[in-house]
């Protein structure tokens, strides 16, 4: 019973994450996204600065 509930919850969370990812993808299709201020993770920034 508990396992069934957990699996149901996992399924729900996976669907929610998919929905968020789909919304982001819709936003990213437009080049206008580049005009917005995008904050870069300091670790990624550091990595890019080293290349």
């Amino acid at each position, binding site marked *: 019973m508990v396992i069934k509930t957990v699996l149901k*919850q996992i399924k729900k969370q996976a669907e929610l994450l998919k929905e968020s990812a789909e919304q982001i993808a819709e936003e990213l299709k437009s080049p206008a996204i580049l005009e917005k201020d995008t904050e870069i993770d300091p670790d990624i920034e550091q990595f890019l600065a080293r290349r």
Partner: protein
Amino acid sequence: MWDKFQACKMLGIPYKIYDMPDYIGGYTELKHRYIHINPKKADDDRVWAHEIAHALLHFQNFESARGVDPRLNAYAELEADTVAYIVTKTLGLENKDYIRYIRKFMRNIPICEIYGTLISKERLTKLKESAILILKSGGYYD
């Protein structure tokens, strides 16, 4: 149009394509942020976006840490595949495996975290930023 080779070049991520078992699409050596791709998956943009996301998002010390805590591995896979899903969906490509793949990794995450927020809003913003970087560096917006 998105060019994975250009993306790797622009982001300074080295890669190597060589034979590996069929069940592995690729993997990223996190310490050196080096991508390894299975030649059978070399045309699959999802695999490339997934590995580039690992290279961008997961820290130098992460590789040793995830050996100690398997949850970190589950989170890393969840994040990399979410970025790959965003990228492929933006490119208009099919990615039917996404739900199956992330559900598999979610099973390794404690129930308390499943009931809470699995990926925080802040972290989701970082995944979005990574997807933008990957798309931009591969010439998608040119």
